[in-house]
């Protein structure tokens, strides 16, 4: 489960149960995000007991992108046996403001800052 372009990298490591998003996600609308959503859905269906969502290298994310991330968090919340850890970076200004809202969607979600 991996997509790698010159702008971004999305990858799921089943051994460490870590979903990685890196680079700059500025795709236009939900249609262009569909391949990424597909990976997210596959990960959700695997229902790992602990899912790490590594966003530390995600420099830029547009509005459609935050929508995709939020819906993924809702999906994980619905999996009662999956706990989620979102890893972010304080060095990236948008993460400090936007990631805290993911906790509102899933109160059990743990936020880890680099």
């Amino acid at each position, binding site marked *: 489960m991996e997509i790698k372009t010159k702008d971004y990298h999305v990858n799921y490591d089943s051994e460490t149960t870590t979903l990685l998003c890196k680079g700059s996600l500025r795709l236009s609308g939900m249609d262009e995000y569909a391949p990424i959503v597909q990976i997210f859905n596959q990960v959700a269906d695997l229902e790992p007991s602990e899912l790490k969502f590594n966003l530390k290298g995600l420099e830029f994310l547009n509005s459609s992108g935050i*929508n995709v991330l939020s819906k993924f968090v809702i999906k994980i919340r619905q999996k009662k046996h999956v706990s989620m850890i979102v890893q972010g970076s304080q060095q990236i200004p948008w993460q400090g403001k936007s990631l805290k809202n993911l906790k509102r969607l899933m109160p059990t979600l743990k936020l880890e800052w680099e």
Partner: protein
Amino acid sequence: MPTKTPTTEELLLENERLRQKLGILKREKADLEILLDTTTEHADAIEDELFVAREVAEEATRAKSEFLANMSHEIRTPLNGIIGMTSLLEDTEITREQQDYVNTIRTSGEVLLTLINDILDFSKIEAGKLELENKPFDLRVCVEESLDLLASHVAQKGLNIAYLIAENIPNIVVGDVTRLRQILINLVSNAVKFTPQGEILVEVTVHKMTQGAQKGESEHRNETARPDESFENGKQSFSAVKKGNLSTFPAEKGEPKHVYEYELHFSVKDTGIGIPTDRLNHIFQSFSQVDTSTTRKYGGTGLGLAICQRLCELMGGRIWAESVADKGSTFYFNIVTEGKPTQQYTYLYHNQPLLLGKRLLILSDNLTNRNILLKQANIWGMVTQTVVSMIEVFAYLRQGTRWDFAILETQSSVPEKVTLLEKLHNSHNPPLPLILLAPICQPRSDKQPVAACLSKPIKPAKLYEVLTDIEKTPTPTLAKVAIHQSGEDKSTHREKRRILLAEDNMINQKVTKLLLKQIGYNADIVCNGFEVLEALQRQTYDVILMDIQMPKMDGLAATRHIIEQWPAAQRPWIIALTANAMKGDREICLAAGMNDYMSKPLRKEYLANALSRAWLMVNG
């Protein structure tokens, strides 16, 4: 059909189902609200980031511009020392070998200066920051000044240089005189560089496109010639003009009121090494030259033509070249401009009563110069005779031919064969006025039998001035007819001129003082704006050469104080003398109240010209 009444149990189940559905909907509503908040706050965060990024980028651009300006200033300051001092050293008594070393230093300094200017220009063009001025200027003066700047290089290589300006050219056009001059200088200096022998010919023709506007009510034409007192390259800068519209032309009494749009065509033709056909398309690309061996042999960055191309495009035209290897090249460019026909140079295109029927001998072995002189003299109604050697002259003399003037083209304004000149001069009674046509006119001794000297390229207006001056003078002698250089200051006056040099850099002080000394002036020196004001309290000065960046009080502040404290009639003529050469610096200096502007490195000729302009204004 009768409906079945639900049982209490069914109702309770339905109620429970709806309650659960309501819970889900509430949860989904809450999620949607959070999603909306998340998306909105995320958009805000991204906007903030973009805003900060824009500020950072703008700050970086400001810092870059400041860096470029500072770099330009810092590099020009020591270059002023190098070029100024080598120019002074060249005029001292040194051996031939030392002269060669000094030449190399001077050329290297000038190459470095050109490089800096090209790189600064190119970076401005690439950044889309190059803006053109839109002011009226005298096209003929622009062409002449451009060629004059290269006269010494042309003379050093023993080349001939000439120009032809079509009769129907609008004398005054609106545009950026500095940038047009830059294109011409670039093309002519390339021509000089790549021409080992022969000549360079610049031609200007015009195509009138449309009538732009009509000024005022009357179309009264004034047939009297007037000096160019209102224009950018004349005695005064025309500062009241507006940018970008037809009101750039001053509405003056007695001038034709029509403004037209013109396409001006320029060509610079040389007899040089030429460019292979397959390289012609590449020469306008940045950092591109004909080939690497060209770079090795002739130097340069390959930016000059790319800059010219962009400047032409900005002026609404284009540039191209035609060439034959080993035969020569012609560079063409055109620009679109507004222009106004004036009566200023009508005397160049009609019979002149003072010269009508006068017999003129033209001695020149250069066909172009002979033709230019012949055509011009014939227009004025003169009777001409052209020869290519002194032997022919004396053959005509023996046949009893007599002339009213003789123009003799020589390799130097101080010719070696003075005896022949004396013989020709004294062959007439009264003596025949001899006019030399030399690569560059130098001061001559009174012993030479020469009435005047004309520097190449031939300037018809100057030729007219010389001929009519001689004609008006009953017995022309050298003492009565000086070298024709506008605004020239007599040596006796020079000593009396009071010049104050405000400059904090000691090397620049030394260079400027020595350059002034070479052209016959003395100057008092102060180091900052405060000292300028103190010096003005002690005594009056005719001219202040004012550096801009000085400690304690800079040149702009000092100028503003002078404008406030001294009435216009008692104020000295202030010339900005600065290493700031970025666009807008000149305007800043003039806006502060300065009268003229010179960028460093200083050149003796520019300094002399600036002072000549000052004396014209100071003397009224």
